[in-house]
């Protein structure tokens, strides 16, 4: 189990891409996916519903210390950082914002890289700040696969651009290419 762990980070302009990706993945998608998305502070409810409607997979805001299950999509809850821990466990934390963000993409990505090394596929989508750049650099350092959304396609390119500058990115892909990559895993 858990041959691959997919972590996806995004903020401004990533919501549509995410729903598109989720709608294309089959019900039997064999790997867990972690979504760390910045959202407006006040949009606490409704967000997960919006993601669920389009998805064939189970989208959940995990409770602290739950076991990771393949085929689940774990959305970092508003106002909590989401870590992957040893032993296939998720843990949450309310420590201060990192890169002005809680959840911070860097923390989810770095903890995934640390524990799952080459199994990690890290994907950085459209977004308006540099969060995720350090995290995806860690994914690369530990031998995982790194993907950034193509800058032409991004509504806001700051985030994937920072990722591309921070490390060696294996693939710069459009959303369609990201989807076909995930389907071939």
């Amino acid at each position, binding site marked *: 189990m858990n041959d691959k762990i997919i972590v996806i980070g995004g903020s401004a302009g990533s919501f549509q891409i995410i729903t598109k990706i989720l709608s294309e993945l089959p019900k039997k998608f064999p790997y867990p996916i972690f979504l760390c998305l910045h959202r407006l502070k006040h949009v606490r409810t409704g967000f997960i519903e919006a993601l669920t409607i389009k998805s064939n997979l189970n989208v959940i805001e995990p*409770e*602290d*210390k739950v076991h990771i299950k393949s085929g689940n999509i774990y959305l970092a809850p508003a106002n909590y950082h989401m870590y992957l*821990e040893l032993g296939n466990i998720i*843990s949450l934390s309310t420590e201060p914002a990192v890169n002005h963000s809680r959840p911070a993409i860097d923390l989810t990505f770095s903890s995934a890289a640390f524990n799952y090394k080459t199994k990690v596929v890290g994907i950085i989508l459209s977004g308006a700040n540099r969060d995720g750049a350090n995290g995806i650099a860690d994914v690369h350092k530990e031998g995982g696969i790194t993907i950034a959304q193509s800058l032409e396609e991004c509504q806001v390119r700051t985030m994937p651009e920072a990722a591309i500058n921070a490390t060696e990115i294996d693939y710069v892909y459009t959303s369609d290419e990201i989807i076909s990559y995930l389907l071939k895993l």
Partner: protein
Amino acid sequence: MLITPEDVQKIILAYKRYSTYQFDDYSEKSFTRRVEKILIDYKLDIPSYINRLRSDKEFLEQSMKDITVNTTELFRDPKIWHTLKFRVLPRYSEQDSINIWHAGCSTGQEVYSLMILLNEMDLLEKANIYASDINEDVLEVARSGEYKYRFNLDYLENYNQVIKKNPYNFDEFKDVPFEKYFDVDKSKDRMKAKSFLRQKPLFRKQNLVAQNNVFYTKFDLILCRNVLIYFNYELQNKTIDFFHSLLFNKGSLVLGVHESMLGPIASKYIKKGIYYIKK
């Protein structure tokens, strides 16, 4: 990550050796991050950190406080407060007294929020309020009841939602000004809880890992929100078991919105949506 799991083990061992603080069963990732922050803030490496822990009592205490995460807000997560108002507190409203413990109260916003709610329900007088934390600095702030006004203005909307409105009856509206409970000085960006609130709770230092009951009483209601997320699965279960031993029969336990009972300990409680009752 700047440090290895072995480094973390060394630090944990040093705290154990030179103090009563046991971090063995803290959540690994957030603990590691806190230790990394200490290394940076105090410009230390692992050996000098351990050295300071051994030789400098003040540093040891201060670094323990730096390890704790103290984020909190007034009326954080309105859903919990609605549940307390309509489901939990009414269970005990006929009793002569209600014993309430905030475990891991941080700077006290949760404590003041509950006292405000109790007051609006005419239950404050018969409530005994106990609150504890491992970090004495946050307890000092909690006792003072004084906060930044503009720290994060979300709480004002949450106050309105919990105190003024009724989610089960949209027509209901109770105009209770915030100033009934806090003296606000916007120019200084300060607010201070009224003295009838401040004098009510008993704040004491307590380490949940050590499992000592510093209040020498049992409780009708224990709130422990966003504290257990810093503990691993085993310590969570032990702590929830400890709470079980300190609740009166039919007492309630309220955890944070993203916390739940995952282990065998769950069988000792009845889950009622987002709160738990002792069987």
